């Protein structure tokens, strides 16, 4: 396979910037195309690439379809329908389970797709560094024809935990043949190796094909900033990716109070039982230890463990079939399917997760403090429909997932209060009933994360005729 062109890729593709724990996601609207192009041009020079080490700061940038048009990109062919539609479109919303309180109409931002154009992602090693970077950028927005829609400050906490209290950011696909995937690879097994083309445009995917890529007329790129793509076109997609961004609010107190209610004994709350049920929902213990390897109790030794499958636990006696991590990546455990075939199938629907928590941590998980908190869910993939949307629709929110009935993901599914959760056991399964929705979508959009040449090309677009 061809080696990745790291110098043309944005850093986020190969790194979660774990050493830059302070971060902010700035959503912008373009009000003046020419000035915004100028801004993008100068930003392109300081965007963090996937080459080398970024010590104290990181900067990455992505654009929505409306954003590309607002910049003046007229005739690019080959953007996928999902990206063109946008996350807030009625069709996408239904498919993603964004209904009721999660419906785009109720979002705090993003329901009008033409108000969301640019996502500027800033990372820093220190809180002050982030504040300084943010202030610098903010000072320049107005002059560059940009309007700040919302900024979600996020943070990777030292313990790596998200708001419900579980370690996050453990399982990631390793890119086959890629050196920077070594840490992810070391923690697991070859089953976790996925073709680069699943995440980066311009490389072969799991089907052995090149992903569809957006292209522009060669005439629109007279300086040949972009690589040629044959047929008189230049490749706008190369070394880029699609970035899914969702602000998912978590009702931490509702979550733990529900679990508390279902595990109360004659002596009242039973914190161990509560935690056990929570682990059954997720598929890992709070430390991160996977249930298939630590079925009975948490085991911090296994906190980062990722070398496991579900084939040996087909019935879900250790990790229930409907648990979050099992729905989000069934690995080798599809019912009635050979483990090898099952892995191959799972690996066509993998996501590079780059999300981080936003909002303050809760002091007492059983007490609602009214604060807004959640996950700034970010994932990268080369085919939104086959990867992110598929995982969300066909696995997470599928009431018939793997032979189950009437239940969706207990942690992040589109619950309506009447769903079940089945926990396999001998001699008989237990069922948790009446699960409410613990998470609510508050905003989001589909972005394109361009390669660096593509960024320079976009910054140099000729103004299009009005109309």
């Amino acid at each position, binding site marked *: 396979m061809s080696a990745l062109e790291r110098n043309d890729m944005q850093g986020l593709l190969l790194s979660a910037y774990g050493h830059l724990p302070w971060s902010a996601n700035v959503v912008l609207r373009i009000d003046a195309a020419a000035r915004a192009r100028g801004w993008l041009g100068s930003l392109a020079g300081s965007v963090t690439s996937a080459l080398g080490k970024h010590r104290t700061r990181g900067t990455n940038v992505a654009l929505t379809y409306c954003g590309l048009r607002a910049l003046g990109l007229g005739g690019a062919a080959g953007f996928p*329908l999902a990206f*063109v539609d946008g996350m807030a479109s009625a*069709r996408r919303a*239904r*498919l993603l389970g964004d209904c009721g309180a999660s419906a785009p109409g109720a979002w705090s931002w993003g329901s009008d797709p033409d108000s969301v154009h640019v996502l500027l992602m800033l990372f820093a090693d220190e809180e002050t560094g982030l504040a300084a970077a943010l202030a610098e950028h903010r000072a320049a927005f107005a002059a560059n024809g940009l309007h700040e829609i919302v900024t979600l400050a996020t943070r990777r906490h030292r313990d790596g935990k998200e708001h419900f209290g579980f370690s996050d950011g453990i399982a990631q696909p390793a890119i086959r043949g890629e050196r920077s995937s070594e840490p992810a690879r070391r923690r697991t097994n070859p089953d976790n190796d996925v073709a680069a083309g699943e995440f980066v445009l311009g490389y072969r995917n799991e*089907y052995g*094909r090149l992903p*569809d890529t957006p292209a522009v007329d060669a005439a629109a790129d007279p300086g040949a900033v972009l690589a040629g793509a044959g047929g008189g076109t230049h490749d706008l997609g190369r070394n880029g990716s699609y970035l899914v961004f969702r602000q998912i609010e978590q009702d931490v107190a509702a979550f733990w109070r529900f679990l508390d209610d279902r595990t109360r004994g004659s002596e009242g709350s039973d914190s161990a039982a509560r935690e056990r049920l929570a682990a059954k929902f997720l598929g890992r213990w709070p430390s991160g230890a996977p249930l298939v390897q630590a079925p009975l109790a948490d085991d911090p030794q296994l906190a980062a463990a990722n070398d496991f499958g579900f084939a040996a636990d087909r*019935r879900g006696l250790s990790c229930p079939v409907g648990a979050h991590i099992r729905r989000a990546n069934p690995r080798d455990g599809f019912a*009635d*399917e050979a483990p090898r*075939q099952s892995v*191959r*199938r799972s690996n*066509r629907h993998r996501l590079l997760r780059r999300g981080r928590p936003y909002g303050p941590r809760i002091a007492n998980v059983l007490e609602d403090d009214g604060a807004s908190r959640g996950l700034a869910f970010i994932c990268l993939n080369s085919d939104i*429909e*086959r990867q992110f*949307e*598929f995982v969300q*629709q*066909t696995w997470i929110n*599928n*009431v*018939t997932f793997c*032979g189950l*009935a*009437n239940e969706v993901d207990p942690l992040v599914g589109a619950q309506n209060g009447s769903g079940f959760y089945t926990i*396999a*056991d*001998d*001699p*008989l*399964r*237990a*069922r948790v*009933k009446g699960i409410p929705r613990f998470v609510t979508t508050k905003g989001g959009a589909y972005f394109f994360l361009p390669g660096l040449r593509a960024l320079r090309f976009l910054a140099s677009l000729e103004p299009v005729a009005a109309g």
Partner: protein
Amino acid sequence: MQHALLRGGPGLVHTQLTMPVRSSVVSQRIFTVVVKACPPRVADLQAFLGALDAAIRAGTETLFSSLEQLHFCSFTIFPDDQLGPSLVFESNIDGSLDDYLAALCRAGAATLHAIFAAGCDYHASSPQPELLQAYLRAHAIRPATAFVGNVGRSVRRIRQEAALVARIEEFLDELAPPRGTAPATIVDNVRAFVRNDPAAHWVWDVQPRLTAADFCARWFSVVAVAAGALALVSLGPLGAYVVALRRRELTDPVDIPGPSPEHVQALTEREDQIVQNHMSSLCYVKPGAFRRRTLKVVLFAANLVARVSVGGKLLGLDSLHFAHWALIDGDTRLLFLTNYDGSWENYLDDFIDKVAAGLTAIWSNTRNFPRTSFLLLDGAKDEKRFKAVARTTQAYTNVWYSAYRGLPVTCIEKNRAICEGLAAAPRTLDSAAWLRLF
């Protein structure tokens, strides 16, 4: 313009209209009608079907739900520049076709009359059940390959079993046996509970689905598949056949513009409303006798394979309720109608992962299918192109009815196994295994 073949020329109307599917309990049939629609009447037809579909969804139209033998039915208008629009009416039913048609045309005379009035050769001036029956029979087509997922399960039984299992699940939640309880004790409790359920007396008569006759039928099918292979050889000296095939595979045009975003939008808008989905597709067979004959042999073989499947599974696919292929318009077009579980993306991925060779062997004989090798290879494995062709040849299903909107194939199978277990002699039942079904 009236297409001669659609008036029922030779090769279209067969004495055997439907495909009875092997079963020890109640057999299922697929009955499909194709008529030429009169272009000036298509707009009205579309509006009428749209209203009918909305009424079904809202629960205000009860014609189809009143037909106790009907699993799924659909109406689809297929537009076509060359042959003009066609209207396809598909029914997946239990038991006798005569009973179904009689009931349908009696209860639905007015509706059917309003629909088929758009047919070029429909001449009744008022709704008349007998005329309608004759008209439907005269336009019936013969499925070349048919598959039924939950073989032997009638609509009534599917609903009864689902309701009973839901009650048992509730009972077990209440019972909440402590760890260590003997499985047999729990099963005894369930039996006592069901015995006291006046709505569940039928369950004691449930027959195990696989009888000795079924086993024989399976073996017979295997032999028949071998016969199919022989038929393939009889396509001509094999070597010459392969050479001819390869020449075509390398030169057949494969480029299509892909589906328009508006078309995909219309299709997806009606998908994923309930657990199941429907897909109607119609495409042109590649010109020439070579492809036509190959396709017929492949469909024949595929039909035999479909007969061997048991337990709701076709070669590992467990999301198909009913599906069939048929050659229509004098074998110039291939019709595919399917009622399946889950999302379209998942369905197509399942196809690609599990039965790509079979699909490729069938669809590679139709226009614009992605490039293949040796009939079975590549083709559907070209995921993006395959999906693009599938969307392009798919038409908007104008009306669709499902008798059990919340039940996937896997769930129906599970309910079946639970009920069969109850009906089995207590000492023959593996109680622990039975409890694992929940």
